[in-house]
């Protein structure tokens, strides 16, 4: 069993409420931070922890905080609770079961950044979570941890929950800020970065729910203690939301560096492939990261066992590796159709493109169309190369990373499963199927 930081108290009955949370050491970090530490000391602890942002990009949180423009007295902290990356459902878990952890994290992080107003931007579909989170916030106010003159120190902080309207792109931090300003979620051109010009033109830090929820532990125990956990390049723990064809889908906190094989097959975590089937492939970090065939998931191309960390999952680059991303671990069994899944993802990105850049707006649509015809048995000889070509033309040519996120899965699926695409094009009668999970690979000699 690895260390637990976020979910240490998750099984305590009543942990969702203030009293039980407090009895289990809750809000001690706020007391310590506002009474005994300076904001810079907290930023330094977070830097020392080498915590990497848990929203997907993995950017070091302390470093991001140190970029905030302190010459402006009005600064904001905005929490990204838009959680819409297919395969990812971990932030929801924190808010649903231990909301005070996020509230406490918002308070210590806001104090570190010198923010007096903070927002939690939550996807609108989570409206059933609003009462849960709002109750936690109200309890924090009632106990003097939010509002004016927090714990008598003179520090003021107001914390609000903002609702989104249903748009994946609003998870991108500048689109999120646009949305929070009451506009369409069109990503902004960077620079300027939010740390210089963010919400209402003021310096702003945007962090993922999980990143913020870790900060109370770091304040209580010190960044150096955090850095001792996990691996050197991936310190600490990470929530992994595991789904797809496994026996035990769910949210798990793992110490980074856990062998992938153990995560996938041990009963403590995923419990192996459902229905006694074979592992075919895995998208280990949310729909935007490259897909890996089973062999390359468990071992790198060089034959080293892979572990759950930023560096190990990306070993081999895009040719033979993938990314830890958001921690959305999607497992495909032998009857999953890679082509149909890719078509599904392409249609997702096409639907979610904000439409500002033509390579993304048009390219995602073309990819969806081409994949639709391949999957439905009407593909043409040149279609597979056409897809690779479209993906190449999107990659790196767009305002925000959604374009790349749409392109990478295409390139990797074709690289690793070209045979399956060719079968769909050349012998559709051999691979006819109706659903994502009823694909039967024809015996090799018939193909």
């Amino acid at each position, binding site marked *: 069993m690895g260390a637990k930081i976020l979910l240490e108290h998750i099984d305590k009955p009543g942990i969702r409420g203030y009293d039980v949370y407090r009895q289990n050491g809750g809000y001690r970090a706020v007391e310590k931070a506002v009474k005994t530490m300076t904001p810079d000391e907290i930023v330094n602890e977070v830097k020392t922890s080498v915590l990497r942002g848990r929203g997907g990009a993995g950017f070091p949180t302390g470093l991001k905080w140190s970029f905030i423009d302190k010459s402006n007295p009005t600064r904001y902290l905005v929490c990204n609770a838009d959680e819409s*990356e297919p395969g990812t459902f971990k932030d*929801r878990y924190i808010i649903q079961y231990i909301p005070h952890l996020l509230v406490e994290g918002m308070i210590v992080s806001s104090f570190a950044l010198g923010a007096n107003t903070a927002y939690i931007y939550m996807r*609108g579909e989570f409206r059933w979570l609003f009462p849960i989170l709002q109750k936690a916030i109200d309890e924090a106010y009632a106990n003097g941890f939010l509002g004016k003159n927090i714990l008598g120190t003179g520090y003021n902080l107001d914390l609000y929950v903002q609702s989104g309207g*249903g748009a994946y792109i609003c998870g991108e931090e500048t689109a999120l800020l646009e949305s929070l300003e009451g506009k369409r*979620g069109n990503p902004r051109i960077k620079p300027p970065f939010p740390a210089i010009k963010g919400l209402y033109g003021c310096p702003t830090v945007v962090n993922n729910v999980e990143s913020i929820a870790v900060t109370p532990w770091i304040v209580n125990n010190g960044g150096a203690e955090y850095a001792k956990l996990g691996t050197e390049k991936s310190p600490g723990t990470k929530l992994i*939301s595991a789904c797809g064809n496994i026996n035990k*889908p769910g949210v798990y906190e793992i110490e980074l560096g856990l062998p992938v094989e153990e995560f996938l097959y041990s009963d403590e975590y995923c419990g192996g492939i459902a229905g006694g089937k074979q592992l075919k492939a895995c998208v280990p970090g949310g729909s935007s990261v490259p897909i890996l065939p089973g062999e390359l998931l468990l071992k790198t191309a060089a034959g080293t066992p892979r572990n759950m960390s930023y560096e190990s999952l990306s070993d081999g680059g895009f040719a033979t590796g993938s990314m830890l991303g958001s921690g*959305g671990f*999607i497992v495909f069994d032998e009857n999953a159709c890679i082509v149909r899944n890719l078509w599904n993802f392409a249609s997702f990105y096409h639907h979610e493109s904000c439409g500002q850049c033509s390579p993304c707006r048009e390219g995602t649509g073309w990819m969806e169309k081409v994949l639709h015809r391949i999957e439905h048995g009407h593909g043409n000889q040149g279609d597979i190369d056409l897809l690779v070509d479209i993906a190449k033309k999107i990659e790196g040519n767009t305002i925000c990373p959604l374009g790349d996120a749409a392109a990478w899965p295409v390139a990797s699926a074709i690289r690793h499963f070209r045979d399956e695409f060719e079968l769909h094009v050349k012998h559709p009668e051999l691979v006819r199927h109706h659903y994502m*999970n009823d694909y039967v690979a024809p015996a090799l000699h018939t193909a």
Partner: protein
Amino acid sequence: MSEIKFKPETMAQVEAIIKRYPEGRQKSALLPILHLAQEEFDNWLDVPVMDYVASILSIEPIEVYEVASFYTMYNLKPVGKYVLEFCKTGPCCLVGAEKIQDYIQAKLGIKVGETTADGMFTLKTVECMAACGYGPMMQVGDHYYERLTEEKVDRIFDYFRNTDPSKVYKTDPLTVAGLN
């Protein structure tokens, strides 16, 4: 059509929301207020409703139309009493969502985007709802219905058909007996 005006208790909520933002930044309240408007005015945003929201926030109507048409949660056309928002994204399909979707369509006799003749249900497909480990799933109102099976779908439809509409969403979503 009766006059478009928020109930006093909703208006109080609207005013509280506007106070969350700095002076002059009241436009930030647009998305939350559109949700309230949709809830109060028959589950969709007719043009006069959007104009009303614009007037409350002192912004141009076009600013409201732009936003309402960008986000998928706002209905710009009338919908049934209950909107079934069914997740069609990959991870849910890996665990059988496509089959359940077929079942729902056959059972209700409608396709995606349509409303049943009795005006009860509108079927809408949506993208990943952050419930991938508990799929197939759909959202109806405030509740996520997860790990759907054909039998569960039957029970859910019966529940909506037989429950007093004023009570449907009042039950604690996390404990609706046997439905999750």
